[in-house]
């Protein structure tokens, strides 16, 4: 093991997506020494995933939103110590402040230990995908991942694509695909977007957002793509690769399409593992996600620990940027512009409506055949989890993990955790409680770390 790199900052911001960038810029503007960490090679997060050659070429980034904001934030990062390719594996509370442990580099990974008075966690989300028959076939992709691929590398997932699941992301991705010349055969939305009509005030103050939504719907209409509200994915078909999809309503009506790719999104799961290690107060958000509770300056219940963006509740990039700004102001004891606080509350109100409208169908558990995988890393089937519930008394996600290995693989349950939770709840007829989800979400290390890196901790544990 080589040398451990050490540094000390006033603030370490973890995650260089929209809210992380905004926090770092604002904290640095207030005179603080700030480090901004991200596991990828470029800042922007998955929202602004891009090819560096396209950075200054607006024509090459037609798929990006708020690109001007990105460029503005990026320019202002000059006073921030930007540390890309830093994967944080542990966040530890010390007597004074925090210690952030990271791995640097893609291949030859070096140990980095950063101490900071305050930490902003802006780790965002990963895609939530509910399993269905055939969901592990090649060609079935997370819609968010496919979107990032399209934005970052301009690679389309297929020529004939269906999208399914729930949430505005389906529309955004369909729009991007259509504008890239891909044939989109259908968009199945398991929620009922007409219910936005029940919440007319949700859109107030969000003119740009409502224009955006209208534009997406118009694009679908223009390409005669059916937007099927109330329809979910029943099954993907194919042998070596997906070649068809069957959609179904709750009442059992079905439609089938030939496709060469199926993009799925059932919303997002906030990435809380670093936060949960410090045991801040949490709550369950409207979309069922465990999120961390923050005040109007993005402070968690742990002194010095702030959280911004999707880890405080899935609400989109615009909200995330505003929260980042508020956190940066709070860190430097400067007041947050009241107009920003108003915007934040408008966005949060919209997010609540969005969560109420775009509900995952929830009945996938009933439809999922026993032979289908729920945990891909450890290749655990739905039947194995059901058997553990029925025969071995498992009634929570931890028990399922210990008995079946579901969630014990490389991703440590990040991908399958919620699906296994739902499957266990359905089979054991016991509602999962928040404590179960919180326990299941706390992971150390947050990312796999070589023994040699851990071993260096032995020599350096009491350095401060």
């Amino acid at each position, binding site marked *: *093991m080589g040398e451990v790199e050490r540094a000390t900052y006033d603030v370490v911001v973890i995650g260089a997506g929209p809210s992380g960038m905004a926090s770092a810029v604002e904290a640095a503007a207030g005179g603080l020494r700030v480090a901004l960490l991200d596991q990828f090679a470029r800042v922007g997060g998955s929202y602004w995933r891009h090819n560096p050659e396209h950075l200054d070429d607006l024509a090459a980034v037609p798929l990006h939103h708020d690109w001007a904001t990105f460029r503005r934030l990026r320019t202002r990062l000059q006073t921030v110590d930007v540390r890309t390719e830093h994967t944080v594996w*542990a966040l*530890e509370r010390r007597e004074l402040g925090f210690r952030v*442990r990271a791995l640097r580099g893609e291949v030859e990974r070096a140990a980095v230990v950063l101490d900071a008075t305050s930490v902003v966690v802006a780790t965002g989300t990963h895609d939530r995908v509910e399993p269905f028959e055939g969901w592990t076939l090649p060609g079935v992709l997370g819609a968010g991942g496919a979107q990032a691929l399209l934005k970052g590398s301009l690679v389309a997932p297929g020529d004939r694509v269906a999208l399914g699941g729930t949430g505005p992301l389906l529309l955004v991705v369909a729009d991007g695909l259509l504008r890239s010349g891909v044939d989109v055969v259908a968009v199945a939305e398991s929620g009922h977007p007409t219910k936005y009509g029940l919440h007319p005030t949700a859109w107030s103050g969000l003119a740009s957002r409502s224009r955006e939504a209208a534009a997406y719907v118009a694009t679908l209409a223009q390409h005669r793509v059916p937007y099927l509200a109330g329809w979910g994915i029943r099954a993907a078909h194919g042998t070596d690769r997906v070649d068809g999809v069957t959609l179904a309503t709750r009442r059992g009506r079905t439609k089938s399409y030939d496709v060469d790719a199926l993009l799925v999104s059932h919303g997002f799961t906030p990435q809380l593992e670093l936060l949960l*290690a410090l*045991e801040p107060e949490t709550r369950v958000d409207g979309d069922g996600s465990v999120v961390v509770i923050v005040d109007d300056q993005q402070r968690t219940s742990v002194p010095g620990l702030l959280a911004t963006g999707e880890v405080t509740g899935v609400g989109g990039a615009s909200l995330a940027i505003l929260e980042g700004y508020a956190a940066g102001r709070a860190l430097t004891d400067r007041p947050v512009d009241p107009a920003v606080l108003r915007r934040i509350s408008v966005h949060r109100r919209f997010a609540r409506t969005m969560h109420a409208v775009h509900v995952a169908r929830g009945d996938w558990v009933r439809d999922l055949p026993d032979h289908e995988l729920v945990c891909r890393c*450890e290749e655990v089937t739905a039947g194995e989890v059901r058997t*553990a519930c029925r*025969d*071995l*008394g*498992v*009634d*929570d996600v*931890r*028990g399922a993990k*210990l*008995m079946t*290995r579901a969630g*014990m*693989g*490389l991703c*440590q349950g990040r991908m399958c955790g919620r699906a296994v939770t739902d499957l266990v709840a359905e089979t054991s007829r016991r509602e999962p409680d928040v*404590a179960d989800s919180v*326990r299941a979400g706390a*992971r*150390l*290390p947050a990312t*796999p*770390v*070589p*023994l*040699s890196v*851990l*071993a*260096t*901790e*032995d*020599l*350096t*544990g*009491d350095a401060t």
Partner: protein
Amino acid sequence: MSLVLWLLPGPRSSHSTSYICPGAWRARTWQGPPVASVGAPAYDVVVVGAGIVGASCAHRLAEAGLSVCIVDRGPVVSGTTGAGEGNILVSDKEPGPELDLALLSARLWHELAGTLPDAVEIDAKGGIIVTSSEAGLAVLVAAAERQRGHGIVADVVDREQLADLEPHLSPVVLGGVSYPQDMQVQPMLAAAHLLRAARALGADVKPRTRMVGVERARDGAVRGVVTDAGTIACRHLVNAAGTWGGEVASLAGGPVPVLPRRGFILVTEPLPPTVHHKVYGADYVANVASDSAGLETSPVVESTRAGTVLIGASRERVGFDRTTSYDVLGRLAAQAIALFPVLAGVRVQRTYGGFRPYCPDHLPVIGPDPRVDGLVHACGHEGAGIGLAPATALLVTQAITGEATTIPIGAFSPSRFGEAA
């Protein structure tokens, strides 16, 4: 956090209960007045704790024809059983009562291997204690000499033999002692399958049911376990609450000094076969028996069937503090690399911690409590609960049914702590 919550007694049930006391023990031990049954379920035995020891006791008691109910404050296997490596060891025991218990238990585990499904991963892989110093080797050889007269197979192995047994061991290792009787089991699945087998014999399993007290007859005998879900009538209470056995014992009126000794384990990503036995550094045995309150770490490295490598073992007396200690994780990693340099670049996928239940004299508490008629202890096994569970269950069952115990249990009796324990 949930662990701490459990220590606070819940609201005491105001449930009024009637008792019926069926079972084989009735003619022999029943002294209180039988009260008419009004539908309250009643059991010969309520076992508190659904870990490996409680599951083993429930299974053995049900096999003996007793009616059994198992309660646990959490889900099944949510305590120390779910945080262990699955050790079934004889190598770390000096001749004495605990070794007798371990040898009996190893025999019973072999029998269980024939009845439990293959999924519980009982693996007679054997253990090897290794050392890199001449002085250390002399200590190991002397210990092996003492153990050999008591039924332990302990073969001294030199560097060349070690290279055959464990090709990836560091060349600085001089030699060691091989213990082919050491075994491993997947403890969570073993406990769950024992509970399943107990249920098939009529036992009831009540997870998420917290014991908050006992009901005692006029003569002081146990006649019910009070839980947050009502009182469960019974004649015997088996305290199999592991690290929380001290709390259960106090609630039952027969306190025993069981305290937590924290440990962490590292789990690597899956590897092709790299470590073939349980391999312990020579410090391990000394640390197991140590009285030090400070941090002790000694390498224990082994593979699981899934290909992951488990790395232990640390011991600290810090109460029920779950905070991750990076210092401990670092020491465990460094020691594992010292034994198996090939592991340096291998990634740790997860870590977990748990609390071993220990008594001041490092012996478990097994057997009837002379202070409370009907209270039987089966806790305080420190790091050896998985290995010692079947023998503990046998002795507990024999004590309850009044049979002669297979081995003497005086050394494990709660009376050894004195009246004021």
